[in-house]
């Protein structure tokens, strides 16, 4: 750590911030791992600001609340959630890793407790932190998954734990490098609802482990369980409609539920369909203007209904067979066409919502674009659709350049941050 006056002063500051937090919240007190977080904050903020930023980071549900509890339940739960995520997104790798006896807890714990501060490339650490400030804890899963994607070929070749685990605990420089990690992060999509879905799945499994119920009829497959969980979590109100859709649609369509608007990415739809959708959307816009007094919810549910019927259309025309979607899914994000569930979807998701939950961590977020990201005006909306269209027709390489993803407004926001 060095004996220079700056280093000594830095350590003293770190010590004071950590002591202050331990006194501020004696229930949590001091935990190993906090020093990593406080140190990053101190590099950007004054001592007092760093303290308050640490308080927010450790206590807001959006960030790390509960993770430093004495019980460590939440971190163990999150490890299971990541394991499920890996199982679904990268089944082959997940199987390989579990086969070598490496539990997700081994590598997930440092991710959550030190937020990737141990990555060997500092600019990448800061990029991850910026994303984390913006989107919250889901970014940890996203970054973790991204590291796995980059390491996948290497990990699959490793025959035992003594090679694999150190690689995960000390991510190699070539993968951590900004030019490798950050573009990959852009291409890795982990939605909040996806994490929530895995959370429920893990909770259900825990419950079943504790009190195994007598099985009614045939034992449920994991797929059926996920479906159930997703349906329950998403607050399935339109029972009839949705159950029909659930049966007919490819599996990743489950988010078509009124209560949480998660319109599917239509980047893989054909051009004609997109045009039709545009038409419908413009009518939605018209009605939205008319219905403004009734609030956004109405608009949202309308759009959902339309989205659903569009999806069914796609199904009938054989645009996406369940088979192909299955294949895409199982091949993992590494081989996934870029257009599939891209950032655009997130813009859709955000558009009817108010602005992001802004944490008072402003000193770190000085570059955040304050306007224009929460709602999308009509012309922007159309240009977005155009952009998506082009996007879907262009077979992009896996590590597409940042400029390719600029079509999404939120990406633009992220871009400014990074």
């Amino acid at each position, binding site marked *: *750590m060095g004996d220079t006056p700056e280093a000594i002063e830095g350590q003293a500051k770190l010590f004071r911030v950590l002591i202050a937090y331990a006194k501020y919240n004696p229930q949590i007190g001091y*935990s*190993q*791992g906090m*020093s*990593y977080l406080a140190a990053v904050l101190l590099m950007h903020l004054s001592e007092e600001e760093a303290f308050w930023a640490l308080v927010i980071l450790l206590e807001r549900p959006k960030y790390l609340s509960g993770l430093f509890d*004495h*019980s*460590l339940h939440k*971190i*163990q739960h999150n490890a299971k959630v990541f394991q499920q995520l890996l*199982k*679904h997104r990268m*089944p082959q790798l*997940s*199987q390989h890793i*579990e*086969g*070598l*006896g490496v*539990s997700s*807890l*081994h590598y997930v*714990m*440092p991710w959550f*407790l*030190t937020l990737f501060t*141990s990555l060997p490339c500092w600019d990448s650490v800061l990029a991850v932190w910026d994303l984390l400030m913006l989107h919250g804890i889901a970014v940890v899963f996203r970054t973790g998954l991204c590291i796995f994607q980059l390491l996948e070929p290497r990990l699959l070749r490793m*025959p*035992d*734990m*003594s*090679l694999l*685990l*150190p690689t995960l*605990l000390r991510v190699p420089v070539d993968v951590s490098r900004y030019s490798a990690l950050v573009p990959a992060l852009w291409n890795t999509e982990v939605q909040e*609802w*996806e994490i929530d*879905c895995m959370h429920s799945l893990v909770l259900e499994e825990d419950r079943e482990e504790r009190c195994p119920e007598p099985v009614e009829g045939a034992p449920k*497959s*994991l*797929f059926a369980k*996920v*479906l159930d969980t*997703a349906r329950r979590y998403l607050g399935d109100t339109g029972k009839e409609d949705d159950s029909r859709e*659930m049966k007919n649609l490819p*599996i*990743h369509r*489950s*988010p078509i539920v009124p209560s949480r608007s998660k319109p599917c990415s239509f980047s893989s739809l054909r051009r004609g369909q997109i045009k039709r959708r545009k038409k419908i959307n413009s009518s939605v816009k018209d009605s939205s203007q008319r219905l403004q007094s009734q609030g956004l919810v109405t608009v949202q549910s309308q759009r959902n209904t339309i989205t659903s019927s569009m999806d069914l259309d796609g199904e009938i025309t054989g645009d996406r067979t369940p088979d192909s979607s*299955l294949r895409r*899914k*199982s091949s993992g994000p590494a081989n996934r066409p870029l257009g599939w569930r891209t950032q655009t979807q997130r813009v859709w998701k955000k558009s009817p919502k108010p602005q992001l939950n802004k944490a008072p961590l402003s000193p770190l977020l000085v570059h955040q674009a304050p306007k224009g990201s929460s709602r999308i005006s009509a012309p922007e909306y159309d240009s977005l659709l155009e952009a998506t269209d082009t996007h879907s027709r262009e077979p992009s390489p896996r590590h597409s350049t940042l400029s390719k993803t600029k079509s999404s407004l939120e990406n633009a926001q992220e871009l400014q941050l990074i």
Partner: protein
Amino acid sequence: MSETYDFLFKFLVIGSAGTGKSCLLHQFIENKFKQDSNHTIGVEFGSRVVNVGGKTVKLQIWDTAGQERFRSVTRSYYRGAAGALLVYDITSRETYNALTNWLTDARTLASPNIVIILCGNKKDLDADREVTFLEASRFAQENELMFLETSALTGENVEEAFLKCARTILNKIESGELDPERMGSGIQYGDASLRQLRQPRSTTAQSKQQCSC
């Protein structure tokens, strides 16, 4: 890539926070002192192949976090360990007093036949000593532990600690006291075909399933 060895032993490094567990491991693996050592979050891992009594043994070493609150997690690593380094800091009586707890954990959670060596670390800081050699060796004797004072800084007795532990395990295997084939012994044969016996948990069927969300 994969070395050939006769046995594989699972080792643990346990003890209170700040006693120098990670530095001991680093010194053993890299042969140098880890200058700016950070706290271990959860667990660290290292392995090295050593030669003990004419046999090549791969040591698979799990270095655990020392802070009390991590115990609930680090305990899960104890299962099936063949040997352990129980570390305290000779300049801190507090870390010495905690040894009983660590010992109980190790004996109950790892295999009951686990071979433990007590390491009084930071031997180089003799001026600040709070625990005498005699006192600690008496404790070791009472609890049937081997004992060494080590220094991760100078490297004194570090290699010896790991090797002594490995040698004892090997002797116990040869005398029949330890059975490598018993589940959870923390010992595996190096022979590749035998290693395959330890099947991974059956996750195959599940992982084939797809998610709907």
